[in-house]
């Protein structure tokens, strides 16, 4: 049974009331769920029917037992009554199954739809929202909270429905048997429901603190394992044992408290329900002895009253749990409520050939309600040129390049790409035309091949992949792994160094073949041994593309066609290396520092040489 792979927009279910929202969320599943509830009702009726049939059996049989010769017709009836019992049981079982299956179909279907929606929704939310949210929080809402909602539909809502249906059907049946008896049988029900709600509220809280302690214990354990070298280096084994013992014992104590609560509630509710039941039995028995009701009626009552009273103990549990399901609903919908980035929006779409001419005209930018991050940015660059951005951390370099793929929208001024304002292009198209290589790129725990072809968006031959890897100077390293291009990256595979990751990202970008390139701090690699290889690979990559280079070393930027020196969100100087050296203020200072470094190195070596020769002379 493959459920609907529909494009139902969950955002449309948002409502002022949570119950209305949940009702709308059931779109497409209402009929099955209604079927589940109806089947429950049918099953409850069948169960009640069994006891009413018992009544018939007893009342027909009794005269025979008391030696009444006119009982012979009963003999003929017996097989029919027996068949009636079997039939009702099959009926009840069948409907119970149908109800369970339909409820599961609904709950699992809604949960799957929600999981898919959230996954897609999150990856399409703008950075302005994602920046604010913690990863763990988003994951928790997409997993545990969705699961809490699944349980709401699968267990809690249906469970409450089942108990209420059982109550209605059986209570009606008993009232029909004898009104006084019926009313006398439900005296403690309000008490038991209230007591169980009270108890389960407390127990849920106690359970939460038990779970919290479990998390504390896990952290202690995890830190001990992760820091095993520190523990051993300071010979702190006994200290660690004591620390764990404390947390461990606390969990034991909390668990014991939880059990004390359970071991009080269950027998206590046993006594309350038992007393009610016994009271009913005795009353009914007296009625039967007095001839007010028949023996058969007594037996039917005896069977029915069990289903009236005992399920009520669980009503409190289900109500308390359902309320946690509602809390989860609120948390999930808080994400759903956010607006997605309209990827396709924009007049200019695909099949457009970009030249890559970019002009910033008095561009300003700030994050929501924040201070200005960029102010009055103005510059122009021709297709295929390279623009270098120099500046300290927080000077706005990354914010500036983030505007190009429309990760963020500029607040004032204009950015023109090939003479057309940037927001006329759809985000999807822009991003397909821009390649980004970062200093420590994010790779996915997949094979190297998949990482290289990730997001290329077309079928790529092995030959092409290898060609790109060769240009990126990563091919030989990949071949040195046991599984070559199929080697997995990450926990289950190999760990790559920063420089290797970067070259995988370069290969990926080569395959993507973008018109515009952003090298975010990519030129200052931590991997000194491979710096030359990376620089060569980047040079290859930049050929024929408009490139933005974020750097903080003069060597990386001096060959750029345009150098922008940024400070506090403004361009303080711009020009080529030679121009800036000739008429700049700050750039020459930076350059001086750089040359000073070289001369210091020379001095350093010279002084070392002097020391050597002087010690040699001394000998």
């Amino acid at each position: 049974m493959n459920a609907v792979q529909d494009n139902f927009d969950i955002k449309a279910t948002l409502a002022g009331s949570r119950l209305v929202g949940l009702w709308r969320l059931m779109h497409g599943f209402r009929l099955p769920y209604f079927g589940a509830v109806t089947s429950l009702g049918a099953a409850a009726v069948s169960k009640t029917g069994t006891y009413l049939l018992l009544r018939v059996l007893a009342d027909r049989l009794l005269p025979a037992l008391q030696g009444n010769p006119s009982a012979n017709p009963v003999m003929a009836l017996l097989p029919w009554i027996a068949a009636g019992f079997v039939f009702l049981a099959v009926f009840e079982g069948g409907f119970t199954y149908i109800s369970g299956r339909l409820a599961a179909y609904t709950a699992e279907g809604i949960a799957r739809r929600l999981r898919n929606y959230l996954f897609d929704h999150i990856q399409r939310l703008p950075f302005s929202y994602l920046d604010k949210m913690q990863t763990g929080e988003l994951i928790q809402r997409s997993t545990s909270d969705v699961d809490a909602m699944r349980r709401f539909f699968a267990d809690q809502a249906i469970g409450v429905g089942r108990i209420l249906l059982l109550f209605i059907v059986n209570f009606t049946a008993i009232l029909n048997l004898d009104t006084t008896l019926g009313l006398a049988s439900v005296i403690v029900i309000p008490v038991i429901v209230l007591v169980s709600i009270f108890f389960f509220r407390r127990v849920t809280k106690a359970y939460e603190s038990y779970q919290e302690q479990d998390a504390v214990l896990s952290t202690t354990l995890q830190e001990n394992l992760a820091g095993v070298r520190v523990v051993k280096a300071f010979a702190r084994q006994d200290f660690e044992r004591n620390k764990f013992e404390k947390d461990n014992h606390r969990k034991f104590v909390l668990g014991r408290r939880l059990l004390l609560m359970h071991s009080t509630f269950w027998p206590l509710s046993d006594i309350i329900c038992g007393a009610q039941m016994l009271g009913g039995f005795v009353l009914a028995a007296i009625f039967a002895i007095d001839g007010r009701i028949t023996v058969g009626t007594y037996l039917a009552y005896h069977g029915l009253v069990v289903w009236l009273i005992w399920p009520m103990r669980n009503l409190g549990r289900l109500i308390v749990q359902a309320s946690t399901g509602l809390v989860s609903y609120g948390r999930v919908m808080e994400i759903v409520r956010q607006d997605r980035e309209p990827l396709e929006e924009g007049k200019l779409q695909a099949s457009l050939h970009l030249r890559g001419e970019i002009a910033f005209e008095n561009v300003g930018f700030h994050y929501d309600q924040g201070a200005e991050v960029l102010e009055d940015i103005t510059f122009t660059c021709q297709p295929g040129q390279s623009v270098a951005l120099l500046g300290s951390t927080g000077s706005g370099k990354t914010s500036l390049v983030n505007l190009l793929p429309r990760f963020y929208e500029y607040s004032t001024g204009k950015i023109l790409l090939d003479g057309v304002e940037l927001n006329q292009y759809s985000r999807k198209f822009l991003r397909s035309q821009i390649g980004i290589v970062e200093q420590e790129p994010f790779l996915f725990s997949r094979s190297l091949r998949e990482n290289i072809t990730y997001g290329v968006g077309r079928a790529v031959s092995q030959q092409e992949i290898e060609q790109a890897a060769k240009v990126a100077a990563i091919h030989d390293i990949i071949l040195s792994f046991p599984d070559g291009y199929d080697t997995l990256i990450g926990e289950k595979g190999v760990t790559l160094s920063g420089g290797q990751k970067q070259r995988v990202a370069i290969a990926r970008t080569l395959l993507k073949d973008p018109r515009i390139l952003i090298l975010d701090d990519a030129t200052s690699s931590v991997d000194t041994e491979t710096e030359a290889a990376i620089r060569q690979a980047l040079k290859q990559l930049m050929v024929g593309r408009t490139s933005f280079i974020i750097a903080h070393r003069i060597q990386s930027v001096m060959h750029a066609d345009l150098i922008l020196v940024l400070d506090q969100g403004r361009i303080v100087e711009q020009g080529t290396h030679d121009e800036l050296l000739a008429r700049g203020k700050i750039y020459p200072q930076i350059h001086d520092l750089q040359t000073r470094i070289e001369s210091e190195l020379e001095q350093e070596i010279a002084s070392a040489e002097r020391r050597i020769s002087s010690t040699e002379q001394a000998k």
Partner: protein
Amino acid sequence: MSDAYFEEEEFSTQFNGKTIIRILGLTRPYALWIIGFLIAILFTSVLDAYFTFLNKRMVDEGIVVGNRQALVSIASQYGLLILAQAVSVFSFIYLAGVLGERIRYDLRKRMFNHLQDLSISYFNRTPVGWIMSRVTSDSERVADLVTWGLLDVTWAAMNILTASYFMLLINWRLAVIVLFIVPVLIVIAVQFRKRILVEFRLSRKFNSKITGALNENITGVRVIKALGREDTNLAEFQQLTSEMYRHSYRAAWLSALFLPTVQMISAAALGVIVWYGGLQATYGSMSIGGIQAFISYVTFMMWPIQDLARVYAELQHAIASAERMFSLIDAVPDIQDRPAAFDPGTLRGEIEFDHVYFSYDDKLPVLEDFSLKIKPGESIALVGPTGGGKTTIINLLCRFFEPTQGVIRIAGQDYTNYSQHAIQSRIGIVLQTPHLFSGSVRENIRYGRLDASDEEIEAAAAIAGAHEFIIRLSNGYDEPVGEGGNLLSTGQKQLISLARAVLAHPEIFIMDEATSSVDTLTEALIQKGMEALMKDRTSIIIAHRLSTIRRANRILVIDKGRIAEMGSHAELLHQRGHYYRLYTQQFRQQLEEAYDVFQSLSIKAGST
């Protein structure tokens, strides 16, 4: 996440008698508790069946014959037994539950304590997640088996026995016929339970894959957006959710089918009871109450049967859990103190590596014929490419590992003559990625010496250069550092781990310098702290910073498990070899960072 697979796939296929005996052995100290809850559950179970019998008597001896006296006496017996059963319910929940918690506690404690004795090599080859699953979930599963599992089986078995007894008592012919269905029901129930469990575990496996996919998608969202891969990602994710849907839906409808199936089979027995029982009744060998009792017994029978099936299905997994848990408890530390190991009182003296060989996995040699003598008070800088063997030298010196061949001597003796504690308590070590524990800054520094006073801690922090930033934190020394120290920056964590080492007053100082750059001020503070630590004691440092390298008495270039070059800074520069290349390259890079061109730029631009 990958650990989840570890867990799902590794379980033994057969019942292992020895493991079961060993599991039961865990309960030995609590024999009285077990006897206690077993008595309570037996009593509860017998009463459950007896209540039905009392109901029968109420009908046959009270109602049918119209005897009020009998009714009152049976009812009061009934009432008293309800109270008695409440006491026994209290007892078994409390005893079995608390005992379960106790055994979990014991198992966790035992595993944790044992883990403290295991050698670093064990942690190198065992993933943290794997160990955590043993300590957390396996211990619970095993404890549940010997408490609730045992309890459920006892209740179920006793319930079936007692019910059978009363049925035989009421009408043995009918009872024999009815009891025929019990084995059939048990077989069916076990099959159901096993299948449900398999589906359930598969669904959990996909659930952890889903969590992994979400995690990657959120942490890598910038790349995804930049590459426009949203649609493909969603398609891939939908495959995962569909797999999870398939298994959890299957588990759910199998569960929904399970009880009705059992119910319908019992319905056949019910039909027999009514028909045959009715016949018997007309001959006088069966009463109305008897028929009612039979119906109750048969209807109720499915609960003990489903309990038996559940415990049986879970038994296999619990045994597998126990096997994995015992494998952890039985792991022997690779490095153990010799029987005559002693504490020399001090490690001051010469350190000597004498023709040392070492390999982590007996295949790839990491150190080959490595010899080195370090004079007391000397400072050594180790430089060279990654994977050359620098970290191994440190690991051997700390005795996290022992040489596969050759000897390491400290103060004139083979260091395996000393106890591990004697060596490790006198070595101060600062790791490349500093590890802090949840708790306050103060607690983390105190880790270096547990009996240190607050003044001593602050003095150590001052020496290490950490004091200034600590007092600027909003809670000062009481500022929580977060899980693994993640509320602090890398540089701050390094300063605290330096302070921790200062407080320990080590005789030998070992440091693996961080490669990641920190801001200039912090960098200068770290240098100052290191200097304080290196003073008057032997120090060995895996060095990346020029100042550290230059300050060393001797520099060793380690490459391919050997000493490629050795000498003072000037001597090595003069040689124009490995060191020269390494040094000039790093010199440029670090000076650029050290000058922090943009910081000065920012100040100037701001002032104009």
